[in-house]
C-alpha cells in the first residue's frame, strides 16, 4: 500500500474541485482531535480486511487454521497464486479486459456526443431524449434483465462476451450523459462562437473544443463505468454458460465453490482479481479522485 502515497496530490485535487476557496480551515485554527481520531478509526476499518486478505493469500492452508489471522506469515508462500494462475486465471482476465474495453470506449463516446447535443442543441426531440436518460437514473435497469436476456437470445448472442457488452453500454448511458452534460454546460459560449466565426463545423467543435475541455469528466465517467463493468456479476451470471467465457467476478465465485475451505487460495484469487484495478488506481488516482469529486457534486 505504501506506493499509493500521493506526493503532489494536493494542488490538483483541490484546484479542480474547490475553485477560489481552496485554502480554508473550518472552525478556526483549533485542531480537530475528534475528527482526526475517527478518521484513523475508519482507516483501520477499511484497511484491516484488505491487510488480512493479502497476508492470508501468502499462507499455506495447513498454517492458516489455528494461526493468528492478523499475524503475517513467516515466509511467503506463492503456491496459492500458482494454483489460481494454473486455473485459467489469464483467460478470465482477458475476458474481463475485452468486456471492459468493449463497453467503455463506445459508451463514453456516444454518451459524450449525446451530452453535447443536449447542451448545445434545442428542440423537443433533444429535450425528451434528455428526460428519457434522466428517467433511466431513477430506474434500476437490472430489473429489466429478463427482457434483455430474451433480446440476447433472439440476437443469437447468448454465451458470448457481446451479451455482456451491449447491455452494459446501455446501462452506462444515463449517468454518463448527466455528468458529461453538466461539464459541457460550463464551457463558455464565447469559445463556441469564435470557433463558429472561424468556420468550424459542429463536428469540429465537438471533438476539437468540447472534447479536450471535458477531459476530466470523460475520465470520471470512464472510470466509474469501468469499475461497474469490471466488477459486474449479474450479467455474466445470466448470460454465460461456458466456463471459458467467465469474467473475473464470476470466476471468483466459482473458485469459492471449487476451493471450499481453502481460504488462502480464495484470498489469492481475490487479490489477483483486484490487482489490475489496484494498479490502475495507483497510476490514475489523482485524476480519478478529482474527477469524481468534481463530477458528482457540481
Amino acid at each position, binding site marked *: 500500500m505504501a506506493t499509493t502515497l500521493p506526493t503532489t496530490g494536493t494542488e490538483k485535487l483541490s484546484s479542480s474541485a474547490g475553485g477560489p476557496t481552496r485554502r480554508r480551515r473550518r472552525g478556526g485554527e483549533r485542531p480537530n482531535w475528534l475528527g482526526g481520531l475517527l478518521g484513523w478509526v475508519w482507516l483501520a476499518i477499511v484497511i484491516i480486511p484488505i491487510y488480512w486478505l493479502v497476508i492470508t493469500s501468502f499462507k499455506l492452508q495447513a498454517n492458516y487454521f489455528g494461526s493468528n489471522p*492478523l499475524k503475517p506469515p513467516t515466509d511467503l508462500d506463492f503456491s496459492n497464486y500458482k494454483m489460481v494462475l494454473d486455473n485459467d486465471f489469464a483467460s478470465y482476465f482477458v475476458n474481463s479486459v475485452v468486456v471492459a474495453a468493449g463497453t467503455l470506449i463506445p459508451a463514453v463516446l456516444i454518451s459524450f*456526443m449525446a451530452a453535447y447535443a443536449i447542451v448545445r442543441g434545442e428542440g423537443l426531440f433533444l429535450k425528451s431524449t434528455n428526460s428519457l436518460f434522466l428517467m433511466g437514473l431513477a430506474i434500476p435497469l437490472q430489473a429489466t434483465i429478463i427482457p*434483455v436476456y430474451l*433480446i440476447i437470445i433472439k440476437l443469437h448472442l447468448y454465451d458470448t462476451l457481446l451479451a455482456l457488452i451491449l447491455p452494459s453500454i446501455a446501462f452506462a448511458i444515463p449517468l454518463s450523459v448527466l455528468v458529461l452534460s453538466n461539464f459541457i454546460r460550463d464551457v463558455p459560449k464565447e469559445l463556441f462562437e469564435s470557433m463558429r466565426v472561424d468556420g468550424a463545423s459542429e463536428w469540429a467543435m465537438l471533438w476539437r473544443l468540447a472534447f479536450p475541455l471535458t477531459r476530466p469528466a470523460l475520465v470520471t465517467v470512464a472510470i466509474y463505468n469501468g469499475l461497474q463493468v469490471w466488477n459486474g456479476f449479474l450479467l455474466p451470471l445470466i448470460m454465460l454458460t461456458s466456463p471459458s467465457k467467465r469474467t473475473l467476478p464470476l470466476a471468483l465465485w466459482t473458485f469459492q465453490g471449487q476451493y471450499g475451505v481453502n481460504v488462502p487460495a480464495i484470498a489469492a484469487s481475490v487479490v489477483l482479481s483486484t490487482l489490475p484495478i489496484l494498479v490502475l*488506481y495507483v497510476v490514475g488516482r489523482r485524476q480519478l479522485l478529482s474527477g469524481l469529486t468534481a463530477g458528482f457534486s457540481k
Partner: protein
Amino acid sequence: MALPALIFFIAFGVVPLLGVLVLSFCQWDGIGDIHPAGFDSWHAVLSDPGLPHAIWVTFEVMILSWAVQTPLSLIIGVFLAGNQRYRELLAVLYFIPLLLSSAALAVTYKALLDPNFGLGPGLHFSLLTRDWLGKGGLAMGVIIFVVSWQFIPFHALIYQGGVRQIPASMYEAAALDGAGRVRQFFSITVPQLKYTILTSSTLMVVGSLTFFDLIYVLTAGGPGDSTRVLALDMYQQGFQANLMGPASAIAVIIVLLGLGLALLLRRIGGTGSQLEGV
C-alpha cells in the same frame, strides 16, 4: 448526435422496460416459447406471502444502509475536505474498498466472519465469534456493514467535493459570531450540502434496489428468507425456478419502487437538485 446513445438506450433500456411489463402477463420458462397467460403471474406473485416479506427486506436494506452511510459519509467527507496533507492520504486509502467487486467482498467477508476459522476465533475475540451468517438479524447486520464498508468511500468523496464548494466566507462570518465547529456543521455545512445529500441519497436508494451480487454470494437470501430482497427473489424465480412470468412481475414492482422513490426524493428536494429532470 444524440442518436447512437438514444438507440442503445431504447434497445436495451426502454424496450426491455416495456418488455418486462408484457412478460409479466406471459408464461415463459426461459428457453421455450412464450405464451400469453393473462393475470396468472400477477396472481401468483401477489398472493405469495413471500412478496410482502421480500418488499419489507428490500426496504430494510435500503433504509438501514442509508441511515448508516449518510451520516458517516457526511462526517468523513467534511473531515477529508480539510487541507492537511495526511487527509489527502486518507482519501486515497479510503477509496480502495470501491475497487473490489461485490463478489470479491462477499467471498472475503464470508471467510473473515467464519464462526470456526474467521477473525473472531483466530484472535480469541469472543465478541466477534458468532454465527454471523446463520442468524437472520446478524446476517442483515453483516450485509449493511459490508455495503457501508464498500460505498461510504464513494459518498464521502461526493461530500468532500460538495464541502469544498461552500464559500469560506460563510465560515469566517460564523466564526466571528462565535459559532463553534459543531454549530457551524449544523448551521452551514449541512444546509449548504442539501442538494449533495439529495444526489447521494438518490444514488444510495435506487442503487440499493439492485443489491444482488453481494447478497447472492454472501447469504443467498438466507438464513431462511431473512435477507431475500426483491432483486434476489426475481433472480431465483426467473433463472433458477424458470418462472419468467412471475419474475417479470417482481421486476415491474422493483421498477415502480425505483421510480416512486426517485420522485419522492425529488419532491423533498424541490428544484435545484442535480437530478432535476427525474
